[in-house]
């Protein structure tokens, strides 16, 4: 594979692992949701770069263009972006409710409160 392909895919994997690390290691819930956003957008880059044709152009029919990029990954990612923002909104609403009910949105504090409940 050429260097451009390798760099492209490895950069996407790097971003994916950054988002993954943020979700599993950071305790703050809002940070986890931001990390999930980083993970999602890195997957979008992977799909869109799979649909690109070198020398092609945006998939809208017009004069003077003969090669178009593949429109199917664009359709998939459009739906995925909207579903991603829906998930983010519900996650943030849950974080607000947890803050109001328990006073903290950090994993360690919530674990502490859970251990105090056990007899």
């Amino acid at each position, binding site marked *: 594979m050429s260097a451009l392909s390798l760099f492209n895919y490895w950069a996407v994997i790097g971003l994916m692992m950054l988002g993954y690390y943020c979700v599993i290691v950071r305790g703050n819930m809002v940070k986890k949701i931001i990390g999930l956003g980083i993970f999602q957008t890195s997957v979008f880059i992977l799909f869109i770069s799979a649909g690109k044709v070198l020398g092609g152009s945006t998939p809208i029919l017009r004069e003077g263009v003969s090669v178009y990029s593949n429109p199917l990954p664009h359709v998939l990612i459009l739906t995925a972006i*909207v579903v991603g923002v829906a998930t983010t909104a519900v996650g943030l*609403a849950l974080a607000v409710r947890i803050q109001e009910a328990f006073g903290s949105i950090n994993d360690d504090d919530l674990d502490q409160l859970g251990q105090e409940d056990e007899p």
Partner: protein
Amino acid sequence: MKDNSILVIVARFLIPLVMLFGLYVQFHGEYSPGGGFQAGVLFAAAWILFVLIYGLETGLRVIPLRVIYSLGCLGVLLYCAVGLMGVILGGRFLDYQPLLATPQAAQQAGIILVEFGVGVTVASVVMMIFLQFARRRAQSQAAGLELDQEQDRS
């Protein structure tokens, strides 16, 4: 924030432009990049900017609460109604062929209606999510829940 004259002037310039651009993207979505989702999000962003500058009560007087709630559901109902119209007129679900005489005009009419339904739903749902978050601050202060602001500047 409506006392800050720079913000007010920029907002009075930008908000109608953003709403107009949202409508342009909605109805021109067949010839240029655009469509339902982008238009809905742009329209909601213009309303959110208005609320940030002039306050939530003024924003709710411009677009009342009941309108936001009902438009959210009406968009999806419009989508399903277009689909059922295809069934009633003799085709399959979401088949645009039986709607008009020529096949191309039928497809275009179906696409415009469907994208409009999606745009209306997305705009009103985003507006509603923002106003639920914005109202929570006033309500939690009224209920006496203070915020633990750990302000260690390390």
